[in-house]
Each structure stands twice: as structure tokens, then as C-alpha cells.
């Protein structure tokens, strides 16, 4: 045993049994190491459990900087897919249009609840059968709201019967007598050009509101009875045929600002 400067090493608590910190710190180190391994293991397990079972696939739409990973679960070449979309695919090829422009939902997500937008903080949920039903419309009707964000300038589009009818109502009821849309019309009532962009938290729901607290339900009620949601409203009350309040509500909600290159605007 070497003794550098006279003092026996053991006496100074350096080596051997006199290293009083060895056991408690060794134990802490072991516990921390075990906890770290556990964390790693759990992280790996979670990573494996949340990955899409079919592997990851995506449609990256370069000109829009959008990504839709729906195709991880819904193959765009499956027979059911081709059947559901029919000749829509000719004018809107999925590799250029993705999915969420028509369907809503959270494109980048890879887990079902996230992708279908059934999570807090995602504002454009999937327009699915359930959401359609609580508003008393069909899924196809609900989706027309999205079709018309692009097709708003056309009076008549195949595959959009509900909104085609609503557009006729707007002509017939002469909304532009009071409202303005795209700079046309009068300015006695709110501008409706981008009515669909009005944030849901900016709607006033009257006390005792029944039914879903959604902008769509608000508009349906407003078209049936304006004064019921906006006390003293100067908007006329019409006796609308069955389903027309819903159609008008879907129409005004489709009027949204979309920042798209020309290729994505129908002629």
C-alpha cells in the first residue's frame, strides 16, 4: 500500500470499509438507474402501442404545406374507398387534395381519436355520422359545408344538392337587401363574407340553451327564429320548408377564408 504523504489512506475515508458514503449513494444510484430503465422501457412500450398497426403512410401536399396521415388507416386504393368517393376522385385526386380539406379532422395525427379530432384543442373535427346526426342532417349534407368553401362561387355543383338549394334561397329571400357578401349588397346588417370564420366562442347562446352548443346549431335556431337568439333582432322570421334552416346554416358556415393556390379553386 502506497502512502503518499504520510497518512494511511484508509484513515481518511478514501478506500475500503471507511468509505462511509459508498453504500447510501450506491443505493441511490442503483434506484435512479432502475427508475431510468423503467422509464425507457415504458417509453418504448408506449411508442409501440400507439404506432398505427398498418405502419405509417401520409399524403404530403407540397403547395399547401399540409400533411394528411389518414391513409395510414384508410387506404386510398381500398375498394370501399373507391366506392364511397366515386367520380369525385377524378376532379379531386387524393394525392393533390388529401383528405381533411373535404372531411375535416386532424391530418398530422396518427391515432384515431386525434385524427378524427375528438380531442380538446382541435377545432375542425371529422365531419362524421355522429356529428351530422346531432344536428339533424346527413353526413353528406354536413360535408357540403366543406365542399362549398371551394365551390362558393358556383350556383350549381353536382353532388351538393343541399347547398345548391340554399343558394337559391339566398337569391329568393334577397339577403343582400340588408347584408353584404364579398363587397356586394347593403350594410344594414353584419357582413357575411367570412361568416364561417366567426369563432364559436363569439356566439352568444341564450340562457337555457338546449341541444349542442355549436355554431351550426346556433345558426339553425337563428334562421328559424332570429329573435330567440338575438333579442330584438331585425332579421325577418321566415316560415322555412323542412331542412331549409339547416341548409342555410351550412351555407353561411361554408363561407370561410381559404388561402389556396389557383389550382385549388374550381373554374
Amino acid at each position: 500500500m502506497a502512502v503518499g504523504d504520510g497518512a494511511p489512506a484508509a484513515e481518511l475515508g478514501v478506500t475500503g470499509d471507511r468509505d462511509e458514503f459508498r453504500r447510501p449513494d450506491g443505493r441511490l444510484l442503483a434506484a435512479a438507474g432502475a427508475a431510468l430503465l423503467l422509464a425507457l422501457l415504458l417509453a418504448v412500450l408506449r411508442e409501440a402501442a400507439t404506432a398505427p398497426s398498418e405502419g405509417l403512410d401520409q399524403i404530403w401536399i407540397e403547395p399547401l404545406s399540409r400533411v394528411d396521415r389518414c391513409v395510414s388507416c384508410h387506404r386510398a386504393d381500398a375498394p370501399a374507398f373507391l366506392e364511397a368517393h366515386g367520380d369525385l376522385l377524378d376532379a379531386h385526386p387524393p394525392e393533390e387534395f388529401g383528405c381533411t380539406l373535404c372531411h375535416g379532422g386532424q391530418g398530422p395525427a396518427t391515432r384515431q381519436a386525434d385524427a378524427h379530432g375528438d380531442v380538446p384543442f382541435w377545432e375542425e373535427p371529422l365531419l362524421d355520422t355522429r356529428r351530422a346526426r346531432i344536428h339533424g342532417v346527413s353526413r353528406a349534407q354536413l360535408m357540403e359545408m366543406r365542399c362549398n368553401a371551394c365551390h362558393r362561387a358556383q350556383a350549381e355543383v353536382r353532388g351538393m344538392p343541399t347547398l345548391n338549394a340554399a343558394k337559391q334561397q339566398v337569391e329568393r329571400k334577397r339577403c343582400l337587401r340588408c347584408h353584404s357578401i364579398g363587397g356586394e349588397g347593403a350594410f344594414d346588417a353584419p357582413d357575411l363574407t367570412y361568416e364561417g370564420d366567426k369563432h364559436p366562442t363569439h356566439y352568444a347562446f341564450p340562457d337555457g340553451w338546449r341541444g349542442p352548443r355549436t355554431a351550426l346549431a346556433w345558426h339553425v335556431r337563428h334562421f328559424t327564429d332570429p329573435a330567440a337568439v338575438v333579442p330584438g333582432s331585425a332579421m325577418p322570421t321566415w316560415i322555412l320548408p323542412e331542412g331549409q334552416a339547416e341548409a342555410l346554416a351550412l351555407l353561411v358556415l361554408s363561407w370561410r377564408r381559404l388561402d389556396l393556390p389557383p389550382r385549388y379553386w374550381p373554374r
Partner: protein
Amino acid sequence: MKDRRPEFVRHFTPRTPREASDAIVRNFLLHAFPARITRAALGWRASGWLGTIALHLFLVLSLTGAVLLFHYIPSVERAYASVKDLEFIVSFGTWLRATHRVAAHLMVAVVVAHLVRVFLTGAYKKEGAPGAFRPLNWWIGIALLLLTFLLSFTGYLLPWDQLAYWAVTVGAQIAASAPLVGEALRELLLGGSSVGQPTLLRFYVLHCFLLPGLTAALVAWHMWRLRKDGGLAVTDRVADAAREGARVAPPAPGKTYTLMGSTPGATVQAHAPSLLLERESVTAIPAVVRRSLAVFCAVLAVCSLLGLLLPAPLEEPANPAVTPNPAKAPWYFLWLQELVSLLTFRVGGFVVDGAFLGGILLPGVLVGLLAAWPFLDRSPREAAGVWFHPSRRRQNRVFLALLLAAVALMLVGTFFRGPYWAWVWPWETAPPPPSWV
């Protein structure tokens, strides 16, 4: 005994104190440690090791942050999407993000706890061994506290979600309420008159490069000062006790494990308590090195586990048209936000500006008081390095009362404030916000 470990593993088992201390001086990483340390300073009681824990949290943040840097895009169009990608497709991205977030919250809490420890033990006191001047380290510490807040605040903006956007908007409003320089300050902070791309770029550079670099530099200075001050303040008390008990051998000449450098008048060797305290101390290798490693692993483990349990929030994309109601500051600023709202009121036609009083004046006064405290504290030198020394009873009480008040306001802000900052009970759940469909 023959060493059986394979030769390519570098290993080192000092056989003598001299070898142990030589190693400290020779090795770049190890030379941050002292050669010897008193058992009192090494123990958990003196410091709770809170400073070291804060340092290790900073390391965890730097490590996780460095990986996040490879994925994050500091552009208002793509920042949010890049964070979503971290959540959804980057391997272990969710965990990485959550761990970074948890470590950030913990670091704020631990740095404050460290300050509280230093205060309650009077470890900032100016009366020390010759050549020691602990107030300087206390001031570096205050700068580190402010840097910790700034790091946290700048990181808050990066995801570019509603939480981020409005927290920074509120923060900028408070900065703008400063007299005379307010508007200029806001412009400087935001790079414009509202939160936008210039703000994001500024906060990105600050958060990822400038502030961490500054923090690392100040931490190094903090550690260097700690050595110049002769170790933790508790060491001085151990030295007193040793002197009184006359158990000390006269300073032995020719030792190599001394503090480096010298002070005017006398060499540090002659006064360094650690030299007088051979029996009260152990060599840093292995005791300090091993315990530091253990603490680092524990910190890393706690952050990783919490990172699995507590996902980092990501709200809606930033939307200037939609103000969340209420827009709450992060928890460690909530007591100030609460004060801002309490101090904003109307006397006749005159509106008292709570943003200035609660957001600028009061924090400014508090930081000023903290900085001046080593010179306002008139307790004897024996009070340094001792928990709750009787001579410091009154100041400790006032300090703790202020701390408790801040914590109480934080709790109020977290659990009892609803829309328009009105009082709500935690069990009064607001209806879910309306949606489009």
C-alpha cells in the same frame, strides 16, 4: 489484488489522498470539484443539494432541447405543425417534449427552493474567511433566477399555440406599462407592435442559444465563486468548531490538494478551512463525484418518468382574433398576475395601473431588496451556514411570510380564477366551450 476489469475501460481507484487530489486537478471535468470536502457540506442537510439539482435539471433541459432543435421550425407558418409532428411521428417525440417541459417547470421550482435554502441558512452573508465574499455569489444567483424565468418564458412562445401567443401578449403589455421606456421595451421584446414572426425569431434565438449560453457561463462563475468562498457557508462553522476544540493540526506544508490561486496578503492554503479540517473531510474522489452522479441519474429518472405521466399541453394554433378568457400566465408568474388584477382599480376618475405596480414596480423592488439584503442583514458571522439561526429569526419570518403569500396568490390564480378573472370555486365547472359543429 489483481484488477480484473478489461484494459480498455478507463478506471481509477485512488490509493492515496494525494492521488485523489491530483486527479481532480488533472481532469478537466473533475476540476470543477474541490479536492476535499467537509462531511457537513457533502451531507444532504446543509444544502438539500438543491443547487446541484438545479444544475442537473439545466443539463437535462440542454440534452432534450438539443434533440428538439432538430425538429422545431421557428416560423409562424410551420412552428405549430412541427410541434404536432413531434407529438405524432417523431420517435419518442411526445416523451422528449414532455420531459423538456417537466424539467423546465421543476427547474423554476428548484431554483426558487435553492434561493430559499440559501436565505434561511444565511449563506449569502458577507462575513466569511479572508478572500471570501459570498454576496457576489448571491448576486450571480439572482441573475440566474431571472435567467431561469426568462428561459421559461421564451420557451413558452415557441409552440405557437394559443397558450403561447396570449401569455407573451400579456407579458408584452406588462412590459409596455413601464414608465417612459415602456413602449420601447415592448418593441424590443416583440420586434414590432404585436406578437408575430419577428417575436418568434427573437424568442427562438434567446431561448435556444443566448440565454442557455449566458446561464452556462454564470453557473460556471457561480461554481468558481463557491470555491473561492471556501465552499459552502457551513464549512466556516465546521472550521469554527474545529478551532475551538483545538483539534486542528497546524497547516501542513507541501500539500498539493489546495484551492487554486491566492488572495492578497495571505495564501489561500494558510486559511482554507478544508486544510485545517482533514478529519472533518473526505476526498472528492470518490465521495462528491459519486454523489453528483447519483443525483444526476435521479434527476434524469424523475424527469423521464414524469415526462411519461404528464404530457406537455398543446392548445389550438395561435389566433390573434380569439382571446382566451381568462388568459393565464404560467404558474410561477400567477402571483404577479393576481397582483396586477388586484392593484388595477379606479379612484374617482383616476385608474390605478396595476400592470405597472404589480408587474414591474413590485418585482423590481423585491429583486432590489434581495440584492441589497447581504448588507441589510446585521446578524453575526456565526449565523452564516446555520439553518434558522436565532439572530435571524425576524427576517426569516418576514421572508417566509412573503413567500407564503406569493404561493397563496399562485394557488388562487390557478384554482379560483375564471373568465374575466372573476372568483370561481374549483368544483364549478364551466360548460365546455362551444364548437363549430
